[in-house]
């Protein structure tokens, strides 16, 4: 028996193979060289492997290949979303280079890479089967990653994430089953037929499918896990989750919304998502108030930011997808930047950078880091000269342009609230009268600084050279 797949198929997923192999290599080297190999070696190999993967993905730009019977489609869409996924992976790896405790082992690095593999798969997945495979690869690795720090909170995060996410996966899977029942095919493209409009199986299937997606995107009311898990997980893993999971899931959602829906039903069918996106913008931003943990705060922020991205997709216009991608990339950069600052501050055993306590009076003690943190927080709020500003205006243009004024209004309200919350952190850093708690700060490792600088440059550069992607379509074969 020969495999039904050709070299074309394997070439299409070659980047994934490289990434997975890098993970294996890291593990093996660690096994062989454990007494000698410093963790820096594992980290270096992982970073190199990720960069190599990124290069390979980059070479796929402009091609359009459907591999594995249309299960995995290589195109600008997959390349760009894959790019964001790898960006997030690189960012997380860079954070692993922080000083102090909670050091990740080679196993963690390998798991992270494999998790990224799952995310990459999602960027190109165009059948329910590949979607499920990608999501599970991504999630299963993450369950482990969350719990790998030796803290009760990390274990709790892992358990909560595991239980809730598995439930959501099951719901998603059941939705896929119903969709399969509706169309008789695992292909997403098969759903985009007018016959589906009147098919109850299709509607119910889509409903369960979207619940799963909404859970992974941590939209309200499926968001409850996110703050807890983000707070409990180690810093790099949280950064990874806020960027990579969201990017991959947005990719799936976009492909589903743009390519898998019969044109007559798509707006009604997606309406609940727009509604929960709108609610998320408010709840996420409101939830940020009165937090004491940066990871938790950014977790809430992520809830709202995903809402913004979805707002750009509302109306499923082609332009909207471009802006959504742009904002996603910008969000990834500024979010990673904020995490990088936290990592640069985490020099002891207790992840000081994750505690807002550390930021009191930081403006006087670490002016550069405080300035950088301020910059990223203002970027998240959408103030110029950051790309967050441009991203917001593009989203507004898309949302208003497709007639979802109420969503635009919620976005404005949510953004105003978000500034309130971010400004509280900034205030803690700069108000002279805030007691400076003596959280001892050691010297930072170089990697977070590099990451921070790159994010900073990118956040500004995106403002002046907005990378609005072209050639995203078609999304399915």
């Amino acid at each position, binding site marked *: 028996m020969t495999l039904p797949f050709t070299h074309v198929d394997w070439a299409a997923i070659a980047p994934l193979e490289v990434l997975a192999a890098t993970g294996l290599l890291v593990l093996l080297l660690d096994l062989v060289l454990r007494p000698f190999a410093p963790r820096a070696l594992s980290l270096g190999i992982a970073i190199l492997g990720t960069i190599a993967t990124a290069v390979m993905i980059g070479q796929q730009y402009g091609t359009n290949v459907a591999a594995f019977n249309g299960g995995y489609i290589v195109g600008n869409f997959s390349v760009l979303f894959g790019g964001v996924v790898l960006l997030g992976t690189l960012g997380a790896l860079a954070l692993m280079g922080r000083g102090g405790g909670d050091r990740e082992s080679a196993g963690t690095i390998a798991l992270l890479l494999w998790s990224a593999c799952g995310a990459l798969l999602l960027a190109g997945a165009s059948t329910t089967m590949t979607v499920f495979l990608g999501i599970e690869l991504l999630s299963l690795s993450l369950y482990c990653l969350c719990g790998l720090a030796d803290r009760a909170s990390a274990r709790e995060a892992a358990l909560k994430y595991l239980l809730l996410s598995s439930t959501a996966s099951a719901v998603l899977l059941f939705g896929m089953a119903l969709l399969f029942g509706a169309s008789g095919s695992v292909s997403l493209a098969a759903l985009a037929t007018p016959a589906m409009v009147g098919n109850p199986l299709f509607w119910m299937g889509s409903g369960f499918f979207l619940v799963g997606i909404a859970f992974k995107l941590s939209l309200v009311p499926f968001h409850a896990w996110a703050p807890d898990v983000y707070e409990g997980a180690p810093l790099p893993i949280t950064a990874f989750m806020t960027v990579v999971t969201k990017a991959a899931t947005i990719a799936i959602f976009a492909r589903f919304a743009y390519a898998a829906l019969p044109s007559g039903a798509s707006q009604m069918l997606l309406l609940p998502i727009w509604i929960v996106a709108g609610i998320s913008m408010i709840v996420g931003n409101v939830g940020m108030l009165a937090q004491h943990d940066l990871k938790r705060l950014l977790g809430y922020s992520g809830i709202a930011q995903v809402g913004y991205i979805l707002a750009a997709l509302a109306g499923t216009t082609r*332009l909207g997808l*471009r*802006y959504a991608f742009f904002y996603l990339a910008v969000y990834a950069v500024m979010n990673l930047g904020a995490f990088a600052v936290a990592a640069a501050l985490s020099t002891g055993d207790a992840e000081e950078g994750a505690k807002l306590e550390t930021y009191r009076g930081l*403006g006087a003690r670490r002016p550069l880091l405080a300035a950088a943190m301020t910059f990223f927080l*203002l970027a998240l*709020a*959408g*103030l*110029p*000269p950051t790309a967050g*500003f441009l991203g*917001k*205006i*593009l989203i*507004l*243009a*898309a949302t*208003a*342009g497709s007639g979802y004024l109420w969503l*635009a209004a919620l976005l*404005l309200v949510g*953004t*105003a609230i978000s*500034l*309130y919350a971010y*400004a509280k952190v*900034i*205030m803690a850093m*700069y*108000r*002279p009268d805030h007691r400076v708690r003596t959280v001892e700060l050691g010297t930072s490792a170089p990697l977070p600084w590099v990451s921070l600088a790159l994010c900073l440059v990118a956040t500004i550069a995106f403002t*002046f050279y*907005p990378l*609005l992607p072209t050639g995203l379509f078609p999304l399915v074969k």
Partner: protein
Amino acid sequence: MLLALVLLPILAGSAMLLSRGEDRRVYRGIGVVVALATLAIAIAARSDDWSVPWLRAPFVANFHLGIGTLAFWLIALLALCTACAVLAVDSARPRALVGQLLLLEGTMLGLFISRDLLLFAFFYDLMLVPVFFVLLERGEHPRDAWRYIIYNFAGGLLLLFATAAFGVLHGTTDVIGTAGNAISGTWAPWIFWGFAIAFLVKTPAFPLHTWMPNTYASLPAPVAAVVGAVQSKAGLYGFFVIALALMPQEVARYSGTLIVLGSISLLYGAVAALVQTDAKRVVAYSSLSHLGLIVIAIATQQPLALAGAALYIIAHGLFTAALFIGLGYVEEREETRSLARLRGIGAKNPRLAGALTIAGLAMLGLPGLAGFVGELVIITGIVQSGNIAVAVVAVISVVLASAYVLRLFQGIVNGPVVHDLPVRRDLSWREGIAIAPLLLALLYLGVNPHAVLAGGAVAIPRAPLSSTSGVSTP
């Protein structure tokens, strides 16, 4: 040149913030040189035009810079105010303050020379940041920083929304400096009010003003001078180059509402200023009153009123800056701003008292100073547009202005010397030079308003109300 105009103060300010050291003379010197250099560049680059593409979708947007007529005067005002404010800085930590002042100048310069709506919105939000940080680090209460940023950012968001919608509907945002009824139809009111509310917050006008007294009172005097004098004009400038130039029909349609808001601001600010005990708050509320008059002038769209508004924008900037700087000197000497405690400066520090007097007189619209000409021309225009009742309200506010200015000024300057307080030195040369140019400019414009009026502040392109054509280039 134009790019250098924006970047020079921003880079200089950033460099200052990153530098070390707290030598007042050095930072002040650099700051003044930079501010004056921007003025020189602005004069040299008055007819330049610089454009680089930015966005092509969802609408065309360019990094388009150019100096309009009103903008030129505002830039001159800004550079002058910044130079004076920098010179007036007497903080123990001058580095950050001067740096923030330069950043503020740079961002506002960017705003005034933007020829693109998106760029305008960009700088509109950006210029909040330096002020926010000054409020944070030196403000009297964290609440003031909150209020400032939340109010203004909310306004900025509406501007953002309006800009996005404008761009989508019109196809391009590269429109500042042109005129025409760019937007019509069901969207027009939404877009107009997006712009208008943003501008009214910034100006500020009733009922969006409550951030302002706290902000002005809380800011260090030099920054308050620049914010009160120039930043508050960003909204009015927006009214001129955006609302009036691009949506005159909407302005006409909602002129009633704007006039009512302006009139309420006018009286509200005046009576509130009458009973404040904090000297800076008196000036703050007076600003509400005076700028309300400009809002009315804009709403009437009467050429004479607009000419007066342009002049009054400059005049108000000059006397507000001079007053804030002067009150800053008073506060440095007496360590209080409470009118209940201040008195007798006139006997102790006659030069300071003289400076305060001239600034105060300009504020109350003394004939012969610039404020008077602006008021007179604006109200003449208002009468010409047929709003006699509004003109009556306006002149009542003039009388109230004399009452609160005298209360402020007499409270500080007059009265017996309090003998048990140490006699502080009078204005030094530096302090004098920091306030004198503003006063001289007030006198000059009062005697020769032609300089601004004939200089073409009125010549901002405006579309005829009946026209429904698209954007025309000047």
